[in-house]
């Protein structure tokens, strides 16, 4: 049903690079199945190589339990929705204006079902998304682009 543009970790990080790592933005990335780990690894590598920073990865369950720490080190944060957590999504929706107010970029990684629920049920958060992509591993497009 949803047909968002495809992007690879390489291209996504390149896009983050043009905005600048201190230009706050929230992206929703859709990824199904076993490639999630691969995507996370590719994103980590590309962030380090292209932006010279690290990507801090948490699961949604961890964020619900421990909260989302404030960041001021220019790092990129990634939340992987390992479960559908309506409480967390509702809190993120209500606090959407504050999620990246300290600068930095937030990536939300979810499967198609969770992404659709998030887009449909969190209007404040959705309106603050810089973009939504279907993310596929770099190797799906062959060799790493020059």
């Amino acid at each position, binding site marked *: 049903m949803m047909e968002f*543009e495809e992007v690879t970790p390489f291209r996504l990080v390149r896009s983050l690079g*043009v905005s*600048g790592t201190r230009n706050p933005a929230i992206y929703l990335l859709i990824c199904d199945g076993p490639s999630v780990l691969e995507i996370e690894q590719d994103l980590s590598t590309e962030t380090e190589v292209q932006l010279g920073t690290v990507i801090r990865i948490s699961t949604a369950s961890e964020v619900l339990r421990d909260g989302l720490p404030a960041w001021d080190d220019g790092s990129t944060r990634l939340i992987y929705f390992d479960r559908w957590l309506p409480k967390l999504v509702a809190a993120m929706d209500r606090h959407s*204006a*504050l999620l990246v107010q300290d600068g930095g970029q937030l990536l939300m990684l979810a499967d198609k079902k969770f*992404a659709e629920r998030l887009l449909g049920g969190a209007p404040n958060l959705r309106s603050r998304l810089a973009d939504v992509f279907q993310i596929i591993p770099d190797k799906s497009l062959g060799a790493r682009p020059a």
Partner: protein
Amino acid sequence: MAQLTKGEAATPDRRQIFRPFLERLNSISPNNSVAERNSLIVSPKSDPRDPDQPAIHEAFATTAELNRGVQMALVGGIGSGETTELLLTLGRLKSHDDAVNVFLDAAEFTDFSETNPGAMLSAIGLNLFAQSNKRLGKASEEVQSAAVKLRELALGKTEWHDQDYDSSDYADGDYRVQVHVPGLMKPRFPELKERVAEIGDLLTAILSPMLERDSQITVIVDGLDRLIEPTRFREFAEQDLRAVRGKRVTMIVAAPLLMWYDDSRFLQDYFDVVRHIPAAETDPKESGFLKEILKRRGANKLMSAASINDICQFSGGVLRDLLELAQSAAQYAYLDSGDRIEHRHVQAAIRQLGNRYLAGVGGTRRRLIRRLIRDKQFWPHSAESKDLLVNRQVLEYSRHGRDYFLVHPALIQVLPEPA
């Protein structure tokens, strides 16, 4: 950095073409100075619902200057520019030396996950106490003690108590249960909760040194529109806002869009002044407002007039969508190795935005959307149609005193044909 060899042409850093534009499109970018941010704001010239009336921020500021203690509400859909109007109001009020202004985002003082009467009032009190100290120096003991008590109520405290529970207290059956017998007269608004009234008294003490100097005190609360549920907003108003009444503190709050369509007419009943921001006019013949927002950010250096028009039109007049479309189009142009934003980049950005709006729209809502497209009929009363308004799949407009609804133009672009 690698040295260029002789005869090798320098490759321009394309990031420097797009990055400044992207930063100017991002309203919360810390890379923009306050002066830069202010220079990017395009002030509306008049009330969006009535071109003969002053702009909303002008109306709010004038009312705050002349009628201390009034309570005003600004209602609008997500991304409609409420925060900008509130910041413009604040900017004008700041021009007075005796003005004490507090700007709060509701998410800073409460989680909203449950009703929390008194939280906003506490945040207002603590902020005003800080301002009072800054302007007037160290407060009197009475005011300081009120602030300490308020802080304890707001943030909680840890106390140690002796355990003195004695079950024999209840052994003789001599205990009483409170039973409430409702009266015949129904109050206009429910009673203030005891805790809220207590915080209200502390606020009075904190305000006293500023009011003795005849200060003009205005509190602007943004973010209450994110409550979405009208009942939740109403609870805030009936408790926290009502406790401020009569204290000569002007309140300006952002209210959720659904309050505008609420059958109880609570907004109009409770607030002294109510203003509504509909989606902005997208027809360039009627208004150049959207175009000016993009031009102010340098869009005309990176894209054609036709592309600017497309972005204005397909934003549906939702200001945040206008900026998002321009931002996405710029990023696609960069990834496409171009130096300019082309028609195809804008079209891709429009499809992406449309798909966002399509997500989660089930059968009933699709029928409502199709009926609006086909028959121009939409009634904002059912739960489904209200959801469409809150989620901005359907936008509310006002032109020449007539209100009407349209489907978001980016959604129309991707809406599948009925099976």
